[in-house]
């Protein structure tokens, strides 16, 4: 063990944004720019070593404590649940969950059986339950927009950033469900056992956020 905290980063955009955030806070993030074949990237300037993972795995690693820290989207957190501390809204990766239908459809009207397709069944179920609506949920792994187009579902619950994909497929947003952005999460035991190191990293991220503002 290197004595550094381990940080699980969601591969792709959140990783790039986290890198930029840490760089703004003055940390040397060059090892992440030339990852090569390494799986673990020491960032001593930030007091961490980073591993790259798919979003749901970030949560799994942090929950089990093999990574003390993680950066993951609120969308994944809402879908996966699990227990950890969600200490900082990092602001980037901003988008929203929304309910969308074929343009002109009246999803809430009528009393027929309704179906919604989604990659996020738990988010969708909570949303419909909160509205007191009885809606059947179908889990789709890929392009959810296809489901209403093919006639499999009456609506979709999905992440919407600009709405361009929806428009191109003849869909429109009926209602925004909640905003989504990247979060810094912390393993519950690490928060207590390695308190000062964890707080130093939170402070570093805050510094990066302020530098942006």
């Amino acid at each position, binding site marked *: 063990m290197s004595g550094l905290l381990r940080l699980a980063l969601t591969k792709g955009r959140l990783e790039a944004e986290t890198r930029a955030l840490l760089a703004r806070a003055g940390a040397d993030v060059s090892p992440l720019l030339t990852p090569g074949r390494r799986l673990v990237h020491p960032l001593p300037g930030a007091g961490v070593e980073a591993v790259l993972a798919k979003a749901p795995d970030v949560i799994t690693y942090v929950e089990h404590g*093999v990574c003390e820290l993680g950066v993951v989207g609120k969308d994944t957190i809402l879908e996966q649940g699990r227990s950890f501390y969600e200490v900082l809204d990092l602001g980037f990766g901003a988008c929203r969950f929304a309910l969308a239908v074929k343009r002109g459809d009246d999803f809430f009207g009528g009393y027929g059986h309704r179906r919604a397709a989604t990659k996020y069944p738990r988010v969708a179920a909570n949303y419909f339950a909160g509205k007191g609506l009885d809606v059947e949920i179908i889990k789709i792994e890929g392009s959810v927009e296809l489901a209403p187009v093919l006639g499999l579902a009456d609506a979709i619950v999905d992440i919407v950033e600009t709405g361009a994909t929806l428009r191109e497929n003849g869909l429109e947003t009926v209602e925004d469900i909640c905003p989504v952005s990247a979060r810094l999460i912390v393993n519950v*035991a690490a928060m207590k056992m390695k308190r000062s190191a964890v707080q130093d990293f939170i402070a570093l991220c805050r510094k990066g956020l302020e530098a942006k503002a």
Partner: protein
Amino acid sequence: MPTDWVGAPEGARDKLFGACQARRALENSARALFARFGYAELMTPALERGELFERTGLPMPAENMCRFVGRDGRLVVMRPDSTAPAARVAAARLAGRPMPLRLYYIQDIYRADDEHTGRPAEIRQAGVELIGAPGRRADLEVLSLAARTLFALGVADFRIELGHAALFRALSQRLDIDGADREELRALIEQKNFAALGDRLSGFENRPVREAIGRLCMLFGGREVFREAGLLGVPEADAALNDLKETYAALENAGFGGRIQIDLGLVHQMDYYTGVVFRGYAAGVGRAVLTGGRYDNLMGALGRSAPATGFAVDLDALCDRLPVPEAAGPETLIHFSPEHLQTALALLDTRPRAELSPCGTLAASRALARARNLMRLINADADGEEESL
């Protein structure tokens, strides 16, 4: 041939040889310590009535409990914790015994989780319940015992964090808030989701209280927490804070200082706990290994009102962090004919790591001993003649 029977159901595990020894050793350490503090052992059944946990408050979400319908049509659960069963025993079978009751148990609890989370479904716990003793002295007894337990179980590097259930309860009662909103606030505090908590609180009218909640729930650490918390202006909350401060001071004074921390945002199982609550963490384990606290309303729900406090420690989690010891195997094989059984048994009694040979001839016994890498062969038929291999 299908081989889908080789594994236990998800979350359940076999333990073999050295792993059994390691866990028994932990159990025995806990047992000796609990007995020294005057606690008496209970074993309660793995199956309990669903009503028990509905009455006492669910220790985990209903969907995480292993439940089924019994032959009488009533709900049966695999016990999800041992506190309610211990309280049941204290309220019913021990109804005639004077308080306080000091009970301990070393047994499994069960939980059903989503698939493939890597969480155990069967968890060995050692725990104590001090029933019928109110106040700080009882809290201190149980907290010291919790710290001593972690020491006794070989955890050199641990932290116990203290919180107080009455803090959030008293403060949230001053907000104009319904059950669902209160739960939402509680969850945000539990997650230390400071940003969302701030947003959520800004909607409430009572400014001093909402600021107190926002401030409190961020505070965790050492003694400085009390200074930073200041005065809350809600009498029950200030009393709780003072209770915690005095408890912390007494523990510090008793030499537990470096191991004990404060977390004013400790708000788990709020409908269960009423006073000082705590959790223990061990280096190398990603989740709490010990949970406990004061639960003064639980006994009342079972018809024998009494203040109570206790804790349980997760023995499996502590066991997993230790290297598995190599179990010592047999060294000696005893060859015998049925008419020399008595001699064979006498030899077995005096040799610590010996076993009987099932073979019909001395040569076959010798071959077996060699194949198993044993050190010697003893022939009971020849009055215990020994042969080194």
